[in-house]
């Protein structure tokens, strides 16, 4: 299935070529957010909050074809 992921914070380093802040790719059916994080190359300790199609979701949530995911890391200010 196709998934589009918007990456914020330090996770931006896992962006697909030519699209800063975005990872686009395919995942096996029934993949979870946990699986997605591994495929991207990150570790779940870097992820503070994840949303699927705008809703906050636990890392065990199952993804579906066409889902839009947002992953964010902890952030400060300054």
């Amino acid at each position, binding site marked *: 299935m196709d998934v589009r992921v918007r990456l914020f914070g*330090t996770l931006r380093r896992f962006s697909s070529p030519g699209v800063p802040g975005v990872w686009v790719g395919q995942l096996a059916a029934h993949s979870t957010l946990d699986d997605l994080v591994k495929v991207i190359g990150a570790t779940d300790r870097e992820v503070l*909050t994840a949303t699927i199609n705008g809703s906050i979701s636990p890392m065990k949530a199952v993804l579906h074809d066409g889902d839009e995911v*947002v992953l964010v890391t*902890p952030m400060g200010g300054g």
Partner: protein
Amino acid sequence: MEQKYKGFWGRVLRVNLSDATVKIEEVDEKIFRQYMGGQALALYYLLKELSSGADPLGPENKIVFATSPLCGTRFPGQARHTVASVSPLTGGLADSQAGGWWGPELKFAGLDAIVVEGQSQAPVYLNILDDRIELLPAEDLWGRTTGDVQDLLKERHSSQARVLQIGPAGEQQVRFANITNELRHFNGRGGLGAVMGSKKLRAIVVKGSHRKIKVHDPEKISEINNWFIKGLKEHPALSLHQELGTPKGVVPLSVAGMLPSYNFQDGSFSGAESISGETMNKTIGAGAHTCYACPVRCKRSIEGSDGKFKVTNRYGGPEYETVGLFGSNLGVDNIIAVGECNELCNALGLDTISTAGTIAWAVECYEKGLLTQEDTGGMELRWNDTAAYLNLISLIAEKRGFGEVLSQGSRRASAAIGRGSEKYAMQVKGQEFASHEPRGKWGVGLGYAVSPTGADHLQAAHDPWFEKPGEYLSDASWVDLEDLSEVGCIDSVPSESLGPDKVRLFTYLQQIWGFHDVLDLCIFVAVPEFRAISLTQIGELLNAVTGWRTSLFDLMKAAERSLTMARVFNIRQGMTSDDDTLPDRMFEPMREGTLKGHSIDRDQFSRALKLYYGMMGWDNLGIPTEAKLHELNIGWLVSE
């Protein structure tokens, strides 16, 4: 002039504005070894020389400008200086660090610090060209924007001179007026600009010719510098910081439910994308700039217009705090509008955090019917109305009409208005909240409450980094909690907790942040999140500069000493543990957003305060014990 010590001069300039005299005082190395610089050095002078209860805007108040031995050396993040005094906003300590170019220039002129006392009858500015130090008339500068004054002073003295100054708001003694250097760097908080204004001191111009600070071990500094450069390349947080600057946090914080919105009623904002660092880069980005000798280049330049709002490339782009407070916290979803508010505040010399926070208080009160057009001089106040906010900024700086009320800050303004409006003032000790929502990170709430300067987001690292175990990704890559293993913190702690493990973590983090303020070292160099050098390497850096044998233990103690001195300072100014509190809203459920319904547990918060006092060696009322003062080698505070 010979530099007597490695890394510093042992020379402090004393300026008496009442009798228009200046003199250089020699300072023993022992003072620098114990207090090091920055916040602690400034507090040393303030505690030695001020009487209890000093009026912040009276002639008895003093204002100290302090650097550290690191300042002016060729190392990233060293270009900061501290300004400290009695705060016109809180009545307690005002202590604010700024980066930029002025601190190193002061060192190049052969000075470590300046103590300004008394009050001038007429406007003046201080001009320092090495040992040629003079007070000059400033009538022609009075009333002009910071941009105009910088141009005039550079033309008059040297294009290479560095200008620290207040704006018209400082002249008018607006209680949250700031101090700027080179128009883009700010001692922003606590109303230090009003203190300079009360003394009729508009600017301090510095040009030094001793441009190479003598250090103990230049090879070691190069070695640590090379380590930093490696980290800068490899470290994802630092490269992101270079790319987007501090506004990188806008969208992530909104997604996580911690982007203050509508005067801290909500934590997620539908317009977050429109005011993000990414959008700023795309729409009005005009490159990056930096502080002296710093390769991080986290400062934004902006320029552009959308027909309604306009920004020039004069005063720098807004930092995250300004974006949050003039953006989501006022319901504004236009980054150019935010940029224009930032520019106007900077031109007039106003702290953007307190200015926007006070306006947000007024808007919510107007919405709730607690303020009417009778109070506002006929103005309607609404969310997402930047044209009105720009008008209010000017009125505040001039202390005119409703601006006179707002110029006092949200605590005094709400006390004057009454009608229950105090409940909506998001402030601690009189200082407005920065753009961080404590209900999703309770340690930030504790930091706001116990900060000696009132609500301050830079007391410690924020909780979410320590929710999960740390790990080494590479020698020079981010590790968060693993970083803290150097001080014995190895256990992860939930963000929404204030149990003993969180209080311990906070106390240690506050001391880590604290020694950055003592060394005037930028937090974007070594703290967890941005770790490019380790905490231990900071001690090694200080030793390479000074020839001392400072350990991480010494640095932690220096910070603890400084925090305790700040506590004593505030007690002398009449503060008590009752001032270590948070607005009721923080204990009430959040209205909307990812963290809808979340609040801080009041009982946990109360217990955490007592625990924190205990861990700091303070009694149950938050008063440092005599034993603690002696242990920190500041026993002289017992008798004074």
